[in-house]
């Protein structure tokens, strides 16, 4: 363990912006990707449901 205090840990030997920037950006990208995929799945399911309800009503649909 090389850190004597939290502030020393956060300062990263003067490279805080570079180190936390790298890890922070990576985390942000991962969160965005997982969230975007959740939205995409919800949309895809909604679309299939819509098509199903149209065909249940005997409607012709065009895409």
């Amino acid at each position, binding site marked *: *363990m*090389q*850190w004597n205090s939290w502030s020393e*840990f956060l300062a*990263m*030997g*003067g*490279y805080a912006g*570079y*180190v936390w*920037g*790298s*890890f922070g*950006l*990576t985390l942000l*990208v*991962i969160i965005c*990707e*997982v969230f975007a*995929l959740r939205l*995409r*799945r919800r949309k*895809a*399911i909604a*679309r*299939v*449901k819509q*098509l*199903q309800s149209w065909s249940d009503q005997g409607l012709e649909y065009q895409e």
Partner: protein
Amino acid sequence: MSAINWFKYAAPQTFYPLAGRLIPWLYVIATLLALAGIYISFVIAPTDFQQGEAYRIIFVHVPAAWMSMVIYLAMAFWAAIGLVFNTRLSSMMAQALAPTGALFTLLALVTGSLWGRPTWGTWWVWDARLTSELILLFLYIGFIALRASIDSPQRADRATAVLAIVGAVNVPIIYFSVRWWNTLHQGASINMSSAPKMAVTMLTGMLIMALASWVYSIAVTFVRVRCIILERERHAGWVRQLEEVKS
């Protein structure tokens, strides 16, 4: 013969529920590995005597750079299988891998830049390693854009497959660039060819982070391929019968 019929899993209909069952586990494993990797990166791995704390960026940079290349090769592989055997799921896999690969390439470039500034004194140089990695990003973007520009999914499968296969030439160029040319990247104290010289804890941290990236990539690719299956097979009877659609 009790051999497993692998072709069974080549059908979207059988792969969809299988992937669905695996995804939660993959997410859990990726998270645990990432937590262990971050712990090693910040608590166990010692300060580098040359680079100080800035070197800790490699714990995200190197795995991201590896994934950018591995995912491209996987994408080209599935695209080629789809092109040759005309299997729908293979082309869908290639399509699902592209955005994650592009994101890892972007992360590799940006974190590399954030590492280069304090270590080399510059955000960017046009050396062979950095330039070929940038070309990789353009290949991913080209792959995604080409698909988006073609209305017929089957035609898009074929066109993007050709692009992916031709572009695969770039991957060995990236990998060997530090040996073939006298790049600035090579001058750094840490790179893949000198990995055994690293402190064991540093190497362990990097490998665990790489493993976490692998599992994460598989998880999000499965999630995305399931979306693509729902989108492309929306008229299929089995899709209409899915629990998530009926409820």
